[in-house]
């Protein structure tokens, strides 16, 4: 008689495939996971508490460090919340710059996801291809904001810097290049039989589950819910562009993959139109007092980040600092379904499922 016992395995916080300092305590029987308990908080910096002692403009750099793969959307959600509260009209040119920056950020973020996800699954090359293209986006954003990752670009009422000469042309040149590369990505990966076997039917959940677990972004759209805040509740100037919301029905890792890849295409479409409509003249900052004091009250705004619905709640008591500030961080909410998905799966699928959720630990831990 062979005596078998369950094994308790710590995956992370130092593990190559947890995308940061995420820890997962799993009970495994052979390679089959019986129970998975996520442990988070290794990267908790208390952004929300710190923000209570800062003026609104001073909070912006902290938002960069939450979802460090798409800092532009984080910048925007905070500025958008304050603008909504204080009723600030943002100049048109600033809105265009914001949209271009955010969409570039979305592509960069999805590229990182694509590369690292395939790295998790065991293919080395896509990572390098993805980072080659991402580097070009980062260079573009660097020219715009002076930083490569933590941009600190947006301000309440506009943006910090105007686009340098010829920058819009560079973005325009980037769009066809990216389309070409994207076709190459599909050639290399999307039809690969091994890849399909690894992701098809893996980590599937239903529409109801997704809504109950409050999933958003590609994690929700992969189940057939066409919910994209850029379409559902257009903010900024997104109502001026025509683009589609990619939706899949299957709800598995491959559906999420397809949604994200198509989102890159749609972002390119938005970029194309935004560059075309970009106003040559105009201000980039609204008339905003040096010290912003939103009126007493509370507000909640939400926008579509690459990972899903990112929201910002501000309670103000009329002072220059917020009374309470809370971010709805999509990675954190998307991660909740993980223990349910992992039950009964094996070790290899653990990586495929966790990777497909697309978490950024800076955002999960806040």
């Amino acid at each position, binding site marked *: 008689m062979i005596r078998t016992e369950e*094994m308790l*395995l710590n995956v992370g916080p130092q*593990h*190559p*495939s947890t995308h940061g300092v995420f820890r997962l305590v799993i009970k495994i029987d052979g*390679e089959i996971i019986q129970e998975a308990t996520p442990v988070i908080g290794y990267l908790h910096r208390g952004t929300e508490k710190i923000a209570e002692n800062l003026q609104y403009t001073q909070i912006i750099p902290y938002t960069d460090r939450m979802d460090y793969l798409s800092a532009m959307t984080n910048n925007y959600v905070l500025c958008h919340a304050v603008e909504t509260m204080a009723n600030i009209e943002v100049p048109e040119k600033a809105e265009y710059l914001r949209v271009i920056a955010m969409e570039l950020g979305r592509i960069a973020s999805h590229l990182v996801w694509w590369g690292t996800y*395939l*790295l*998790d*699954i*065991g*293919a*080395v*090359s896509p990572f*390098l*291809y993805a980072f*080659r293209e991402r580097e070009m986006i980062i260079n573009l954003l660097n020219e715009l904001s002076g930083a490569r990752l933590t941009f600190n670009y947006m301000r309440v009422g506009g943006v910090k810097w105007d686009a340098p000469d010829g920058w819009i042309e560079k973005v325009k040149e980037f769009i066809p290049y990216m389309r070409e590369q994207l076709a190459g990505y599909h050639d*290399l*990966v999307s039809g*690969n039989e*091994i*890849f399909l*076997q*690894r992701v098809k039917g893996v980590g599937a959940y239903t529409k109801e589950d997704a809504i109950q677990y409050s999933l958003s972004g590609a994690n929700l759209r992969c189940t057939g819910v066409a919910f994209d805040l850029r379409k559902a509740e257009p903010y900024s100037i997104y109502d001026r562009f025509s683009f589609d919301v990619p939706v899949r029905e299957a709800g598995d890792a491959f559906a999420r993959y397809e949604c994200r890849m198509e989102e890159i295409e749609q972002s390119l479409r938005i970029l194309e139109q935004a560059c075309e409509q970009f106003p040559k003249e105009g201000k980039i900052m609204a008339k905003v007092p040096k010290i912003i004091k939103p009126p007493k009250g509370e507000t909640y705004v939400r926008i579509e980040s690459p990972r899903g619905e990112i929201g910002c709640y501000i309670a103000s008591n009329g002072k220059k600092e917020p009374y309470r500030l809370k971010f709805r961080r999509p990675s954190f909410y998307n991660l909740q379904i993980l223990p349910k998905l992992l039950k009964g799966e*094996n*070790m*290899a*699928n*653990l*990586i495929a499922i966790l990777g497909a959720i697309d978490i950024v630990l800076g955002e999960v831990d806040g």
Partner: protein
Amino acid sequence: MMQGLLQEAPSVLNLLLFFSLTLAFLFMVLGFVTYGILAERKVMGFMQGRYGPSEVGGKWGLLQTVADVLKLLLKEDTIPKAADRPLFILAPVLAFTPAFLVLAVMPFTEAFHFADIGIGLLYYMAISGLTTLAVVAGGWASNNKYALLGGMRAAAQMISYEIPLVMSVIGVVLFAGSLNLTEIVEAQSTVWFIFLQPIGFLIFLIASVAELNRTPFDLPEAESELVAGYHVEYSGFRWAFFMLAEYVYFFAMASLTTVLFLGGWHPVFGLDFIPGAIWFALKFSAIVFLLIWFRVTFPRIRGDQLMEFGWKVLLPVALLNIFITAIVKQLFFM
């Protein structure tokens, strides 16, 4: 040549010659390992739009692997406290000994051939099976959960793929009428077995990649899941031994593929003014390049799919191949 030396009356000269040739061969293999790794990194770099090693030893990074090995040799030798000490020390040795042993039967050219034994092919398969032991021992002795999982995966994988590997070469053996590797090469003087045995070749190629634990079958050391698999606790020269074994096997398997399916030292298009050794090296390099190419291109297959593929696809197809080969031989070649 070697056979001649062994059969002559023993003398000091004989002994010296035999040992110096063996030593030369050892250095050749080590040279392959050194520059095979460099070539792999360079080819990968080329395919991935980067340079690869380019700092140590000129702009081609010619001394990069040498420097890496030196670093490994100088590293502190750590053995985990809870490890099974004797087994932990034994495992790397167990891994690399059979890797070198199998090279004895490999006929590189008509003359350069250390042991011309009648059951060369069987010997290769049997000895190479021993490596599984080392991998399991290493994984178990480390007393690390990741290593254990890696070791178990390796054992399951290597055993399952050894069977289709052996089955796939039976077709070759049927055509050549011998298990002796030299005779198998001789039998290909007109037509290579890759043309007579295309299915056999495909199965052999797939199974050999699985045997080598290379992408897409690199589950035992799946770095994204198991960190490094069975050798996660090894460092320094013990780890280097595992790596050495892996690359010597790479060498051996590419040689075996050349011998079994690509006609060994036989020239292409009757270009026989080029020596057989060069032909062998060319064919061998093509196989090595192919395996590196695989590594750049493919994702990793999942454990259960791997088992399913091995037992439900490769094995039946290999059996079918034997059957067809027997019929074809009976009908057309008797």
